[in-house]
Structure formats: C-alpha cells, structure tokens
C-alpha cells in the first residue's frame, strides 16, 4: 500500500467523538473495568445498557488522536492512539461473552447482539495491535476497511487470547443453541486459527457431547447402547467417540500439556473399555496441577476400576476424589456405590447420608464433573482470559 493511500485510509477513520458518545464510552469502560471485582454485576450492567450506547461506545473505541511525525520502515505513517487500549478490548470481549451467556435463557436476540459485539471488539483488537510501536497503532481496525479477520499482531501467550475467547464463548452458547447454531462461530475461529488446541477440543466436544446427550447411560459402556427403538447403535457411537478422541489428540499434538484434552481422551477410552484408560487417568491424577483436573481423573479411574479392576481400587479412587473435593457430590456418590458393591452396606449408607448433606454454600466452586459432563465453560480458561485482560 503506498504511503499516500495509507494516509488517506487512516484519515477516513479519524474522527472526534461527540459528547453523547463520550458518555456512552465512559459507562462502557467503567463496566469493563469493574468486571474483575464484580463480574456478575458488570455483565448484567452491560446487558442492561441500550444497544445504541454499546454501539456508540465500541465505535468510540476506534477514535483517537493522531500523530503525523512517525516513521515505520522508511515510510511516513500516522500513528493513532485509540481510546481503548488492547487490554480494554480484551476485557470488553470477555464481558460481552459473559453477558451473552447470562442472557441466553431469557433473551436470545440480545444475547446474539453481545456475541457480535464481542466479535467486533476482537476484530478491532486484531487490527490495531502493533507491538513495534509500544501500544500505539498505525493501522485502522481491519474490519472497518473491509479486511477479513485473521491478521494478528498479538504475540506470545496473548496470541492465544482470541482462540480461547472463541472456545469459551462457544461452550457457553452450546447449551442453548445446540451444535449447528454455533458451528459458524467455530468455523470462523478455525479459519483464523487452524492450529489452536482449544478449538480442536471444541471440535471433539461437537462429536462427543451429542452422544452423551443421546445416551445418558453411556458410562455403562459404549457396547451397550440402544436407540429409543431398541436397535443397537454401538458401532456408530464407537466410531463417533473415536473421531472425537482423534480431535483431542490433535489438541495434544499442538499443546502436549493440554489437561482437558488428556482427560477427555482418558474418558473416551473409559467409555470404549480401552485398556489404556487406567494408566492415562492415573497419570493425570498424579501430575495435573489443578485440583479439579485431578478430581476428574480420579472419578474416571474409579469408573474404570468398577468394571475392570477390584472393588478396593474403586473405593480407593473414589475415596481420593472425595477427599480432594469433599463438597462435591459425584465423588461422594461414587464412593458410596463402591462401598455398597463391596458389601460395606453400613459405611455406604453413612457416606450416602453425607452426600445428601454436603456444604453447598460456595456455588462459585461447583462439582467439576458437571462442567466436564456438559462440556461447559472451563474455569481455568476463564481465569486465564481474565488475567490477560486485567493483569
């Protein structure tokens, strides 16, 4: 692009925000800034803002002041310092996603608006970031001038922000939109990030979750599945599970330490009665840095032990899960059942009574099995995104 044309393009985007837009921007930025301390309130506040205000605020994010004296690679460029920093845009994308997910049960149309708003701030983010100029920008937002999404100036860990945002948002939308409804979002993300491990995991979930929904009893073994008409669907289900596992392995190729991908491979091997699952689950239980992941690995180990090993192994695995997550019901239920199967009826009854009276006061720390089973939002990714946006 010649410098003359470049200057002309930049000037097209230069504008001064009128006073109303400034108010809208201030409200918007205040909500974004408050998210780390009170996320529910901030997300609800954003959801309650009029759409015109949000649109004005995002447009105002594009405006800024120009400096005409900069040089870059021998060319004269105009540097524009935008009103919204890259981290603000990252934060905004997160809050829009959160608002969308909260709105889904009651107002799908407004939820979609917030998903689109999140995508828009990300496109601004991708278009404007240039580390060579210490945070100042010499390119306008690419979507404003019709350049397709996919170019990024983010580097290092930050470069994973956008695919992880997509992964988080898709998971949140899945429960309400179903798989076809969010397929286009996943395709868009894959176009820009064809090697992102979190997107391979989502691809795997698209294959695995429909089976979990169709066959809630699938943990009894993929070989025992029946359709509502009674016909055996095991072969098809097996193939679909194996294809899902292949996606999780692609995630591991891209990111060998990806714990969720490891867990889901071990879980699928458990469903398929694959002999590798015991060692896989044991390895995760011994090495996962996060207690939630260790808990899930121990549950899977307990399930494997019920079918293929001794009742002592099952009791030990579920017992470890229950000790690790004493407030979580699933480990408790597994332990009670394993004790019952071992003939320890009184102890099983005692544990079952405990399971029904667990401390439920901390609803922000739910049983990890629930999220894993539903393929829903994963807390570590949510926390990572927040740390990047609000360091």
């Amino acid at each position, binding site marked *: 692009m010649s410098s003359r044309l470049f200057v002309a393009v930049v000037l097209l985007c230069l504008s001064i925000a009128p006073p109303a837009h400034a108010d809208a921007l201030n409200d918007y930025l205040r909500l974004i800034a408050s998210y780390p301390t009170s996320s529910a309130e901030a997300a609800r506040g954003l959801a309650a803002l009029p759409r015109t205000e949000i649109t004005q605020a995002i447009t105002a994010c594009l405006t800024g002041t120009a400096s005409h004296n900069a040089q870059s690679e021998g060319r004269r460029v105009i540097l524009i310092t935008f009103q919204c920093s890259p981290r603000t845009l990252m934060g905004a994308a997160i809050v829009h996603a959160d608002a969308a997910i909260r709105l889904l049960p009651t107002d799908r149309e407004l939820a979609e608006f917030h998903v689109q708003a999140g995508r828009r701030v990300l496109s601004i983010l991708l278009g404007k970031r240039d580390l060579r100029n210490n945070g100042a920008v010499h390119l306008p937002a690419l979507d404003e001038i019709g350049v397709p999404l996919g170019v990024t100036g983010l580097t290092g860990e930050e470069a994973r922000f956008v695919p992880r945002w997509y992964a988080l948002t898709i998971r949140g939308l899945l429960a309400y939109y179903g798989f076809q409804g969010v397929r286009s979002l996943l395709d868009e993300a894959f176009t820009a990030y064809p090697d992102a491990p979190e997107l391979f995991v989502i691809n795997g979930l698209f294959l695995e979750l429909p089976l979990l929904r169709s066959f809630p009893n699938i943990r009894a073994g993929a070989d025992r599945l029946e359709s509502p008409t009674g016909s055996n669907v095991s072969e098809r289900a097996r193939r679909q599970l194996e294809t899902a596992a292949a996606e999780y392995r692609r995630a591991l190729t891209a990111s060998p330490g990806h714990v969720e991908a490891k867990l889901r491979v071990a879980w699928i091997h458990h469903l398929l009665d694959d002999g590798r699952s015991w060692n896989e689950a044991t390895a995760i239980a011994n090495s996962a840095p996060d207690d939630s992941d260790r808990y899930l690995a121990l549950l899977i180990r307990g399930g494997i032990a019920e079918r293929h090993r001794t009742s002592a192994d099952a009791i030990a695995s579920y017992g470890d899960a229950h000790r690790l997550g004493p407030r979580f019901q699933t480990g408790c239920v597994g332990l009670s*059942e394993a004790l019952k199967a071992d003939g320890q009826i009184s102890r099983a009854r005692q544990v079952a009574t405990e399971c*029904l*009276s667990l401390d439920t006061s901390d609803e922000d720390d739910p*049983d990890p099995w629930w999220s894993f089973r539903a393929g829903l939002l994963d807390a570590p990714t949510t926390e990572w995104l927040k740390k990047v946006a609000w360091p």
Partner: protein
Amino acid sequence: MMRRACIAALVIASQATHAAAQQPRFRSETAVVELDVSVMRGRVPVAGLTAADFELTDNGRRQTLISAVVNPQPIRVTLVLDVSSSVSGSRLENLVRAGRAVVDQMRPGETASLITFSHRARLRVPFGASIDEFRRALTNLTADGSTALRDAADLALSTESEQRTGSLILLFSDGLDTMSWLTEQQVIESARRSSSVIHAVRAGGDPILDKLSAVTSGRTWSIGSDRELTETFTRILDEMRARYVLTYSPREPPERGWHELKVSVKNVRADVTARPGYAVR
C-alpha cells in the same frame, strides 16, 4: 425363635436346641421371608384377603404362606422431587401443593423426609422433623439446574434402613437424566436389593422410572397435567397403606443367588404387584 427378615436381605436364622450334656446337640435352621405386595382392582385396593387367597412360588416352587396381613408397620415416606429448571413455574407450585398434601395426611407413627434434586441431590427434611419444618422446606423450594435423577434415586435408596416393610420412595421427575455419574444398572441393582417400594410419578421423564418401580413392586404414574400431582401423591399413600405383607418359610434352605418370585391371587379378579425376586447373599 424364628427371626423375621425383610425380603431384600434374607438372613438365615439359626436355632440351637440344647439337650442334656450326654445327648448329641443338633442345630436346625429356619428362614422366614416377608414380602409386601399390592393387590388392586382398577384404582381400588382389594381388602379382606387372607393367606389362603394367595399363591406364591419361589424359584418355581410353590410355597405355603404363614400369614397375609395388611402391613402393620407405619409407613415411612421419602419424597424425592425433581427441582431442575424444567419444573419451574406452575409445575413447581403444584409439586409443592402435592408435597404438602402428603405431609398433611401423615397418620400417627408415620414419618416423612424430603430429598430434592437437580444436578445436586439434597436432604431438605430428615425423618422426625416437624410438619411445620416440612411445610417451610416445601414452600422455599426453587427450580433450577440440570437433572441427576439416577444419582439422587441411588442416594435415597442407600440411606434407607434395611429390613423393614412399609418404606416408600415417592419419586417425581419430568426430565431425562443429563448429569448423573451412576449407570442405570447400578441404580437398578440398588433398588433390587433395597427394601423400599418406589412409586414413580412422571411427567414425561426418564424411562428408568419405570424400571425402578417395577423391580421394587411399585408403580409408575404418568400425569397428563400438573394439577393431577396432589391426587396422585395421595393415592400412592393410600395404596401403600393397603399393601399386604406375605410371610412364608421356604420349604428348603434358600440357595445363594437370585430367587424369582411369582405371586397371584385365587378366586379374586385383581392385579398383584410384587417384587420380581430377591437375592440371598
């Protein structure tokens, strides 16, 4: 002394007879099995039956009944209610009303407890709580979350005490299980070994409800409208109170393993619902 044992956990009792020191000692074993059954003609329990009116086979062998009486034990009712998000609104209101009807109709000596479940199962009211506490717990119910029906049913079965008749689990659900860890086979096995009778009330709901009620000699009640809940719950109570307890002493010492039971009534047109069998450990 013969030792009575509940059908679900057969215990072989032993009786030692002592004679003079120089006489050989001998031991005889007797086993007694109690089985509670429902006898209905349409919607009405059939009253006035005696042991002579029943025919019972244990693993195909005809047994002689010692007695058949309407269950003398006060019933223990565990309400296990689905409070997932699909139950919200008028369904929840009707469910609360039905729960209150159960509590209001408790007779002297009868007790009730309340377990609710969505993705999490919770004991809201233990046995022995006051009626006011029960009513308050029902009034405070909210509906939210997914459905872990199998886990909740298993926990309810596991916390029931063994070796008693008159134990009712009244289980309501309107959805498919989306969240449980336990498999269907595990829960059905728990039900088979339990002494509780499960009456399942479904509004749609998971097919496992039918299986649980069948293996425990209960029934599945399908409702077309939420307004039917109260009447359904109270009919279940009435049917439970009208069950007969059949007692027999097996002709031969019971073998370990599964015993298939078949029960019918003679000279009376009625439907008999009984457990399909019991296990001897």
